[in-house]
């Protein structure tokens, strides 16, 4: 399910992004932002799904997608309102969203999600045993 959804999204998003480039105005810009921000999470979902499920990565991926989407939309809506908008963390809120929301927030979320789920989802002990067994069998086969 997760893989199929990811592929469907990637298949629709790629040409849709091309189409966005042909038009001007708020709707194509918003559509482009929405598609771009969800694209990385779709690729990750395609790669990490096991039997169509995202397991412990479901929540971190959802959080990453929401974080990127909300930040993208917020920056777009706050465009041109630097003087009126409040400040946060040393910056006007739009720049703060860009720096803390798009850069530093995902840094901890993604790196920790990767490290903390690594042993029981990304590369499990049984995967490594199978890999080691296969490598031992295929030793000597060096034809690329």
């Amino acid at each position: 399910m997760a893989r199929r959804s990811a592929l469907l999204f990637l298949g629709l998003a790629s040409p849709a992004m091309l189409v966005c480039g042909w038009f001007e105005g708020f709707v194509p810009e918003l559509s482009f932002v929405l598609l771009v921000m969800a694209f990385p999470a779709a690729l990750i979902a395609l790669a990490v799904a096991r039997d169509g499920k995202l397991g412990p990565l479901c929540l971190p991926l959802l959080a990453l997608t929401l974080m990127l989407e909300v930040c993208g939309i917020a920056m777009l809506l706050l465009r041109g309102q630097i003087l009126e908008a409040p400040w946060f963390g040393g910056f006007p809120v739009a720049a703060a969203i860009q720096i803390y929301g798009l850069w530093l927030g995902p840094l901890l979320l993604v790196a920790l999600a990767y490290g903390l789920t690594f042993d029981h989802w990304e590369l499990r002990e049984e995967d490594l045993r199978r890999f080691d067994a296969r490598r031992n069998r295929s030793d000597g086969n060096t034809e690329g």
Partner: protein
Amino acid sequence: MTPPVNLSVVGSAVIYLALVTGVGIWAAGRTKSAKDFFIAGQKIGWIVTAFATMSAAFSGFVFMGGPGLMYRVGVASLFICIPVGFTSGFLCWVVGKRLRLLAGLREIYTVPDVILVRYGSRRASGLAAVAVIIGTIGYLGAQIQALGILIEMVFGTRAVLGQWSLPAAMILGCAVVVFYATAGGMVAGVYTDLFQGILMVAAAVAVFYYCLHSGGGLEAMSRSIVGSEVFGPSHLDPFGTLPVMTAVGFFFVFAVGLLGQPHMLHKFFMLSDPRALKWMPLVIGLTQSACVLIWLGIGLAVPALVAHGRMIALVNPDQAAPQFLLSFTPPILAGMVFAGVLAAIMSTADSFLNIGSAAIVRDLPKAFGRRVPNEFFWGRVAVVGIAGIAAVFAFLYQDLIALVGTFAFGTFAAALAPAVAIGLNWRRVTATAATASMATGMVVNLGLEFLSKQTFLDWLPSVSLKAGVLPAAVSLSASFTVLLFLTWLSPAETQPDLDPDVEFVMDL
């Protein structure tokens, strides 16, 4: 550019060049086979690999070009670098594990090797090799050019050598990189990258401190910029100075396009143990983010200082970093940063020398069904050859090589990212779809970039895309579209018979 000849800067540069030469000599004794030469014997631990990945990814642009760009267009420029927040985990999830596992089962030293094993198609692999060679010449030429300009600036050679200054500086810089890349191959490459990476992080963090100190803190700098007549509120508006399509296009290309960068993917082949991937995203993400602090710090401090009248407005925005360093940081730190920039340029250059030589010695011959008898020896010869070609191009066609350098990232992204990232995660992708996707990515990117920017051939038509749409974003989207739709449209009987090792790795 005024050469800031300064004893600390010269001393740091000399010490730095001596140290990397020393690493080359040390590594030469540890490089005994093609496997050592191309993938450091697949014996590299995770911290070294993480630093090597980080320093190879960042060229001198992050240290010099980035602050200059931020001076010119404000925080919109950050869309190029802020994807580092998540791209390290993204890279490891999407391709890292499978690349490393595949390299443990098969003799895989390069991205075209991966394409060959995955798709069983010499045509697809050959096309990938062509993309690697084109991108390598561009990237490498741009690095050699930047190296020459920096060495010329640090040592003030123009006053002594006149018109021969730049070629002499390029030859000196190139000779050092070629020496350690030829003698020690990737063993020298990764250990110099480790040293270079530590230097880059230390320099960037220290400079950020001085930026905060000289500007009075983040909020004081921001308020100065917003209130300034020269810069104004749009400077701190993420979509204030660039069209949304350009700014978000940068984010797309520099995040998703990372999946096609051979100098990044190559590092996964070297990792001694797949378990070591576990904390790599944290280390790569933190170190890359630390380096980006110099972009943010100088990018805020210089406009704020200009707004306060403590610096004069810059005629050339690329002077932002050198001017700040020489005026507002201790000489020893300025020297360390100039060495850090040398490090950033050289660490990128050595990766491309290795990748380019592998493309010539391994990938192209294999695409024609041949193997070069002594890859180790010819790999070394190819390093010298490819450096020479890139240096000659960089000197003779300075504008052209800068242009090619700027779109090399997009070429790699559009040509390789879909075929590698989707291909390693979806069995149905066929060799035909991968080949068509690579050809589309390469042709569209090179065509659009070249036609929109070239000024060498008057008779060629110019292409301008709407509302700041980036050619690299168009080509990357087009390449994904072609790969996905051709795969979906392929009849069931044309589904590929996967190599058993590839199938095994895709199952894990």
